[in-house]
């Protein structure tokens, strides 16, 4: 029973990681940039979620507003920060991205204060007993449910619409896509919008589970998500999902059974290094 619960907790954490890391994979696939500042958008999404919920009382509205606004901010980040750096060596964009992320933490602190914000009436507290002694918190059910819905919509969009097809074509082979008359610039904007919106959704969900948003809440996401997309094989969407779940589940069991040997982060990275030594191209990466 405990194992099952830990597995479930791993899946919850994995779902959150997946939502965050997916945007990172999309950006990497398109631009070959390790977009650390993605974690800042996750934090922004969480702040917006709490602020709008507290103002209107509607979590649904807050999630929608948060996703749209964060998505637009993501597009602006691309336009203002990354586009000019595209021809430069990749670590330039990486350092620029890290700088943006650090700056974002400071901006959140200066605007919203160092203590962070909470929902005044935390929604969805409580749990549901699925069967004898097996519980799931409402928040966690929402995390898993919403992740499945969003990832399915994304999957459907990319497989069944003109938009999605041109998007995938661009990720696979930008020059070919250009030859087929796809407007790469639009695809990039779309990419940043969707990735950032997903991160915002993850932010709202995390805020719900913790009932706390704070300036530094993106710090774990900033490096863990990088580890996940590398583990998945850089640029592979399916690999990212698998890696996110793997890391979530390893952390879940590790926290309980290996916590006195290695902390959560160290465990995740130990796993990453092990995998890369055996498969240098990541779990599902192409050689």
């Amino acid at each position, binding site marked *: 029973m405990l194992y099952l619960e830990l597995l479930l907790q791993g899946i919850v954490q994995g779902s959150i990681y997946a939502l965050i890391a997916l945007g990172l994979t999309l950006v990497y696939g398109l631009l070959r940039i390790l977009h650390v500042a993605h974690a800042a958008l996750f934090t922004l999404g969480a702040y917006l979620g709490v602020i709008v919920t507290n103002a209107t009382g509607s979590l649904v509205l807050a999630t929608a507003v948060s996703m749209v606004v964060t998505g637009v901010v993501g597009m602006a980040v691309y336009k203002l920060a990354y586009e000019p750096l595209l021809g430069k060596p990749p670590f330039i964009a990486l350092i620029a991205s890290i700088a943006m992320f650090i700056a974002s933490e400071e901006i959140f602190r200066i605007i919203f204060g160092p203590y962070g914000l909470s929902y005044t009436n935390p929604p969805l507290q409580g749990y549901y007993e699925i069967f004898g002694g097996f519980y799931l918190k409402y928040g966690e059910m929402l995390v898993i449910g919403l992740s499945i819905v969003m990832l399915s919509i994304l999957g459907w969009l990319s497989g069944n619409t003109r938009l999605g097809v041109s998007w995938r074509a661009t990720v696979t082979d930008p020059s070919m896509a250009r030859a087929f008359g796809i407007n790469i610039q639009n695809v990039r904007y779309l990419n940043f919008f969707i990735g950032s919106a997903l991160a915002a959704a993850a932010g709202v969900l995390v805020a719900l589970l913790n009932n706390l948003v704070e300036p530094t809440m993106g710090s774990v996401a900033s490096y863990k998500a990088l580890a996940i997309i*590398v583990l998945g094989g850089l640029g592979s969407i399916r690999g990212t999902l698998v890696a996110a779940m793997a890391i979530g589940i390893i952390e879940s069991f590790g926290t309980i059974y290996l916590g006195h040997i*290695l902390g959560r982060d160290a465990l995740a990275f130990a796993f990453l290094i092990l995998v890369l030594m055996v498969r240098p191209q990541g779990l599902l990466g192409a050689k």
Partner: protein
Amino acid sequence: MAYEITLITSMAISVLFALSLNFITGFCGQISLGHAAFMGVGAYTTAAMMKAGVPFIATIPVAAVLAGCLGVLVGIASLRVRHDFLAITTMGVVFLFVGIVRQQDFLGGEIGISGIQASSFGRIGFMAFCLLLAAAFAVFSLVIKRSWMGFVFDSIADNEDVSRVLGIDVSKYKLIAFVVGTAAAGVAGSLYAQQFRFVGPDSFGFVESVSVLAMVIVGGIGSVWGVAVAAAGLSVMPLMIQFVDDYKILVYSALLFSMMRWAPDGLAGIVNRSVKRIRRRS
């Protein structure tokens, strides 16, 4: 005066540390997001040995050797992965290092090691010693850059597949870069332990690794004097801009971003371009 002495000593240690990464990332093109781990090995070595009564000077070679040994291990591992995979692997190394150190009681666990004795140098003597080591490594870097080894490093940083086709044993050279760079970082760690007389697991993490990489890139990757100037400046910048208090990290990050956005080739690039412009005019 002690305040200036502390600042100059800190600068010297940062310069040595940044140049040690420059040897790996700047010269040989191997990006590392985990360089602070090697400084940590050196710092913990010196701290633990001095606690056991070994004089400071005697701990430095041990720190260098241990850091270099870990460097070889990471170097061998890094031969399997490239570019962004390498960056994240090295990032993993620093998380693993911190995670392991945290659990070691003989290294003080979470508490770290404090109350490290002062060296027999005295403060000015120690400052001079740090300056000397930083300068010595800078000269060594310049010599290597001019040698055939530097030539080979250039080719590996440029395109390692081509280097192989030209008959160069890329792995061997990469390992050398790792050993030299990590051993020097170990020495920087020794100095760090002596400077602050305290080491803890949080002093050698991912943030410190990113900061030192930022020094290398702001200086102009591969440029010895550029990196040295950037390291000296950036290391004391948070203290210099205490007057903006609440905003100092914001200022720091904004500066870093602007540098990448408008002058990605670093200080060295800015100077080279200005020199060219002046020459053209005259």
